[in-house]
């Protein structure tokens, strides 16, 4: 499976995706440095259960990389059907379910790692520059394991939830549909209308996570017996 994942990265131009991730993180860093000063950075947001600064980092990283996950789902999986490279893949002596799972994992692992690294870099950037920018970074409790556990688990959850876009793209046979679906999922999970937000609603996330798992299962189920159209 590891070999299949590695090959997926290679043929889908992982170098380009790494460059995009680096640029995304750099832009987010710049944005945070420019805006954080305006935030009541130490204020604890009830809806988020964390400080304003921490919540802002999480929000922007999640939004960016969930869309990016949608783009990668479109490229790695839906695009393979669109461009018919999946016909080639299915002519190899490898189980089709394994091929699709390798694609799913290639996207998941990349975006999860990118999301965690991006958060870590943003935290580091904010802390290292606080004397220059004057940001009050007390809200970043980087010494506490729960802080990092939250950063890792929320990244895993957000990347997973993005996979709800997969069956939508597959059903509509459209990469664009997968990306649009990912954007809509971002709006639902990260958005806020007035004081109403589902950002810290664990039940909502549990349901979405279950839907995401079901989405991947739906995409892999019967792949052996379905015609490749």
């Amino acid at each position, binding site marked *: 499976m590891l*070999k299949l994942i590695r*090959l997926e990265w*290679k*043929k*889908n*131009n992982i170098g380009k995706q790494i460059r995009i991730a680096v640029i995304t993180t750099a832009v987010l860093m710049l944005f945070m440095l420019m805006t954080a000063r305006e935030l009541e950075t130490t204020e604890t947001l009830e809806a988020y259960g964390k400080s304003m600064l921490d919540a802002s980092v999480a929000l922007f990283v999640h939004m960016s990389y969930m869309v990016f996950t949608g783009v990668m789902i479109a490229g790695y999986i839906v695009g393979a059907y669109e*461009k*018919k*490279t999946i*016909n*080639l*893949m*299915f*002519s*190899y*002596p*490898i*189980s089709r379910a394994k091929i699709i799972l390798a694609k799913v994992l290639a996207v998941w692992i990349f975006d999860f790692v990118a999301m965690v690294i991006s958060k870590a870099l943003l935290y580091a950037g904010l802390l290292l520059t606080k004397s220059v920018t004057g940001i009050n970074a007390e809200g970043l409790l980087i010494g506490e394991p729960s802080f990092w556990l939250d950063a890792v688990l929320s990244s895993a959850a957000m990347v997973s939830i993005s996979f709800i876009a997969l069956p939508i793209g597959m059903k509509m046979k459209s990469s664009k549909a997968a990306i649009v679906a990912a954007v809509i999922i971002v709006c639902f999970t990260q958005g806020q209308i007035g004081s109403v937000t589902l950002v810290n609603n664990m039940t909502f996330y549990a349901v979405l996570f279950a839907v995401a798992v079901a989405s991947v299962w739906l995409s892999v189920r019967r792949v*052996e*017996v*379905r*015609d*490749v159209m």
Partner: protein
Amino acid sequence: MSYILQTSRLTKTIGGKELVRDVDIHVKKGEIYGFLGPNGAGKTTVMKMVMNLWKPTQGVIELFGKPLTPQSYEVFRRIGSIIEFPTFYEHMTGFENLRMHCEYMGYYQHGSVDKALEMLHLTEAAKKPVKNYSLGMKERLGIARAILCKPELLILDEPTNGLDPAGMKQIRELLRTLCTEQGTTILVSSHILSEIESMADTIGIIHQGRMRKEIGLKEIEEMSLAYMELTVQNPERAAYVLADQLGLSNFKVLDGGIIRIYDNRVTIEEIAKVLAINEVAVTSLGRKAETLEDYFLKLTGEVKADA
């Protein structure tokens, strides 16, 4: 007789539309099997089912003596294929695409990629990204990929699409070499008669989703496809004489006083003699062989467009 590939009553229906029905094909080891049919006849449908891309609505496919099931993966280690058109990872070079193919096939033989590229005259282009390749180069790279892992069975769907005449000839020669020197069995489809005629050992003719005939090229040459053709001034009387005096029924009266006799029980001399006795003036008389094209058109019931 054991076959490398055979299908039995292969049928595919999609959305209520029957694409092929009861197709039986029998591909013997070490032969080139030409799958011939007009566009839309069902050639690609059959090949997609053989490659497990589409599942048969009915019927059975046997590859190397074993039934093909949705879980048959290992068998594809022994097969090279191009179905419809070859697809590549366009940002990667031709060389990288072939290397990746080897990785997926689990085939590691030093120098095999270079050799395949050389066989298809792509050595110079190997380091260019595939997005810069012409249609013909992509087709040749597809064939290089299909033969790369020394498959026992090669399945090629219209492999000469996009090639110039010299390229087409080169591919025909390559396939013949693979067949004779490596014992590769080849199933190759085409709608171009001359192409199939010049390389196949056996021809399967498909038309409107039905298999019309499976026949060896030698058989075509030997069987009743050879006929006698005579031109007479009074075809009605000649037809009467042929039926009444010689007891012939397998003949056809065409325009211009031409009569074609497909019955090989009588000789030209006998026909000439009987017609002369019955005062039928004959302006020409000779033996001709039906071309594969004539045979194909007869089976498919089509009119030669450029006649």
